[in-house]
């Protein structure tokens, strides 16, 4: 293992109650793309946080260029040429791109020999050159708050390059990107590899590993399961290793049995706070037993359609009918009581109250009516027994049972709690927005199965997703949204993935 630029030997890291890394040893060669594959909570991020100096290992050692090193902070790691793009970007929003990149390592000069001064012109120039050299086009003087997520990620990559990082850690870099942006990022990673940089890619998306990685280490429950050459491995093999059992990639789907129309959206237009039409004259109908999926690149108005149907934003014009009844101006509660459930995109910001207990969160659709409350007085016993029932039915893993605080649970279990709460209402309409975002394979399988079960029960399902694979495998009908307009509505079996992709790019006649 002498050719390794980085070696982690027998790393063990414990947190109260769990062993995040259990005697993990890996070696990473110079100039390769090394993937760390594992489900949520497998210990990938902890291992890389140790390499980046955020945590110190309880046992084991780190070798960089064959020499043992000890990192007390990420500054130490950066001094050894290690850089990291975190899943949640660390950027100062009101600062410009260049200011963010040079922050901490500013090109300092002395005006008149004494006055310390940061030469921003020089920084801007350097960054322009750097960004062109790697194909990461950015405008150094744009403010972070004005640029989209994909550009922010480029800024994070440039930050590492500017600091001369040779070893670059990417923590779930594609979780926030659209399919096109993912292609672009993988291209960049390839460029970096060709330039001699060493890349460590933390991910649970096997397709990306197959496309870009040279080798892949699989972690499960804190232990290293194996290291595979990607060229000699199949996706199925990697998936089985990651999950620890046979994985079924596609779901069994029964032929559709449509019932009465449940949701009718007629000429819906929604404006954002700048009075700009984000949804334009959109009409569609979803029948009971039908999964209607809206495909589209992120930010084309999908979220606003869901919010308008759910009553969280006002429709500027048009109508929303639920079970034939006009609900356009109705408040949220009236809609949920009339038979609507909603699994929102953001679990912590919208779907739950993170600092409340699981028990309280599970009761959010019910707390105000019997048996949970009578005459305005709560009945805690009802909360508890309902929570215990849902924990069992939906297999929600929680350390302290109904009293577990939502924030302390894993993303997969938070989502199980939300999905469980909403499905338990047995409503006619269920809205799913990005239901599997950031989840591992096991959890995705589980949620897809539940969506299909609800379809068989006869519920109308509005599915909004950025994952085209998800849409193609679940939808009965597909609507493609482009800049707020519904370009195409068609039965799913009459559309190919390529055709949907073309409509998503705004091509009218595919």
């Amino acid at each position, binding site marked *: 293992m002498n050719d390794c630029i980085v070696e982690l030997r027998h790393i063990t890291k414990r*947190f*109260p*109650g*769990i062993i995040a890394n259990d005697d993990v040893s890996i070696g990473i060669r110079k100039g390769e793309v090394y993937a760390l594959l594992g489900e949520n909570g497998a210990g990938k991020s902890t291992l890389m946080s140790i390499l980046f100096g955020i945590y110190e290992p309880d046992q084991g050692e780190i070798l960089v260029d064959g020499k043992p090193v000890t990192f007390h902070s990420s500054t130490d790691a950066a001094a050894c040429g290690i850089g990291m793009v975190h899943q949640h970007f660390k950027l100062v929003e009101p600062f410009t791109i260049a200011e963010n990149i040079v922050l901490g390592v500013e090109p300092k000069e002395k005006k008149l020999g004494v006055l310390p001064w940061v030469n921003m012109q020089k920084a801007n120039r350097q960054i322009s050159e750097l960004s062109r050299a790697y194909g990461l086009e950015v405008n150094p003087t744009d403010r972070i708050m004005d640029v989209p997520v994909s550009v922010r990620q480029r800024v994070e990559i440039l930050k590492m390059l500017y600091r001369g990082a040779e070893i670059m850690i990417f923590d779930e870099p594609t979780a926030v990107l659209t399919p096109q942006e993912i292609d672009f990022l993988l291209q960049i990673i390839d460029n970096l590899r060709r330039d001699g940089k060493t890349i460590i890619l933390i991910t649970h998306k096997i397709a990306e590993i197959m496309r870009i990685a040279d080798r892949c280490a699989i972690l499960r429950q804190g232990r290293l399961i194996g290291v595979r050459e990607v060229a000699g491995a199949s996706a199925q093999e990697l998936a089985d290793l990651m999950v620890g059992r046979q994985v079924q990639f596609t779901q069994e789907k029964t032929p559709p049995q449509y019932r009465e129309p449940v949701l009718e959206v007629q000429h819906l237009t929604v404006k954002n706070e700048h009075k700009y039409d984000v949804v334009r004259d959109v009409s569609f109908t979803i029948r009971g037993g039908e999964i209607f999926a809206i495909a589209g690149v992120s930010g084309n108005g999908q979220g606003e359609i869901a919010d308008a149907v759910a009553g969280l934003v006002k429709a500027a014009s048009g109508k929303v009918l639920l079970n034939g009844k006009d609900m356009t101006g109705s*408040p949220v509660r009236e809609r949920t009581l009339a038979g609507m459930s909603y699994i929102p995109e953001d679990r912590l910001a*919208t779907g739950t*109250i993170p600092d*409340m207990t699981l028990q309280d969160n599970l009761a*959010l659709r019910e707390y105000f009516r019997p048996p949970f409350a009578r005459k*305005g007085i709560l009945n805690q016993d009802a909360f508890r027994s309902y929570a215990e029932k849902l924990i069992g039915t939906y297999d929600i893993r929680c350390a302290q049972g109904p009293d577990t605080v939502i924030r302390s649970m894993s993303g997969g279990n938070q989502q199980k709690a939300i999905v469980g709460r909403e499905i338990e209402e047995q409503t006619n309409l269920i809205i799913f927005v990005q239901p599997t975002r950031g989840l591992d394979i096991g959890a995705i399988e589980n949620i897809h199965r539940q969506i299909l079960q609800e379809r068989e029960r006869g519920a109308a399902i509005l599915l909004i997703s950025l994952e085209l694979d998800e849409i193609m495998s679940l939808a009965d009908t597909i609507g493609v949204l482009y800049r707020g307009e519904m370009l195409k509505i068609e039965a799913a079996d009459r559309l190919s993935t390529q055709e949907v992709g073309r409509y998503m790019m705004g091509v009218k006649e595919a």
Partner: protein
Amino acid sequence: MRKKDLFLARRLTGRYASLWVSVLAILLMLVTASILLLLIGKDPLAAFRSFLQGCGMIPKAKYGGGSGQLTDLMDFLNYLAPMILASLAFITAFRAGLFNIGISGQMLLAGFTATVIVGYNKALSAAVAKPLVLLIGLAVGGLTGVLIGFLKYRFNIHEVVSTIMLNYIISYLTGFLINSNYVDMMTRNSKVCTPEARLTLTNVMIGGLKCKIPLSLVLAILIALLVSFLFRKTVLGFEIKAVGMNRRCSEYTGIRVSRTILLSMGFSGAIAGLAGVAYYMGYTNSIIPKALPGMGYDSISVALLGSGAPIGSIFAAVIVSLFQQGANYMSSSIGVAKEIASLITGILLLFAACGNYMKYLAERRIQQAADTMQPSPAPGEQEDKEVKAL
């Protein structure tokens, strides 16, 4: 050895963590205040004893004619009642995620209005006047609170900004009205209220001692129980907490967020109004023009020290009131300026506000201890041991 070492850390992460944080904050405050007193050459023990003596908790060396320890204790309770109410006002808004720092202004406006309408009306009997004072306090404070809530949800004006502005307006408006219409030429304060309207009975003889009886203390404890009930048992309390913790999720759930904000701000203002009448028509019997009551700000310390719990804040109010009310006697008996009481309250607020940091340190301490235990047991066994140690 290790067990002893971890005693505090275990307490700070356990079930009664909030209580232990408050206890620790009080201990730290006592230590800091002692150092401060030592630095100016005073005996800290004598100082703390005189605070307690000033509040009738322990007997003084000598008493004037007709007064005794009970007199001091009743005076203390007379101060305590509005303090409890003011901190309950803060808590009610705080739970909805609103920072009501306008309690002083709401107290003053309610106290002034009740004084002018009822306190100067000699025709009213006690049975009519006292309930009327409470009603006016509730209504004036409540409406002020609703106004703040309305400004917040309709025009998106942050409650901290609007309450600070309202504090100024109320302070100068009432000051102007008192100076032009209701001023007592001797004291330069507003004229005193009628005994019928006052919420504290004065010159009551108990065992040969002249005592005050603060009727508002009963009210304060009643309101504390009510607020506690609101947040633990009612749908409305649940909704207020939900809005306080995640406004967006509350909207998504179907809670009418604007109504909830209006209501909790209205409740907060109404309780502040009660605190106002208990203060201006009970503890004092007149109003100093253009001066906001410091109690409105002390109530924030009290609420934090009581970790936002209604019943906890009764005990926290006792601690803070001890220093505020005992300061006069302490000052005259050992010769330290009475402003030290506010300084001590400030130190207490600082330590109480560090509560989360203390909890974090304790968690880290426990984790380190677990890490050094070698060879490490399986996670399950480890937890069992900790439970037993507790």
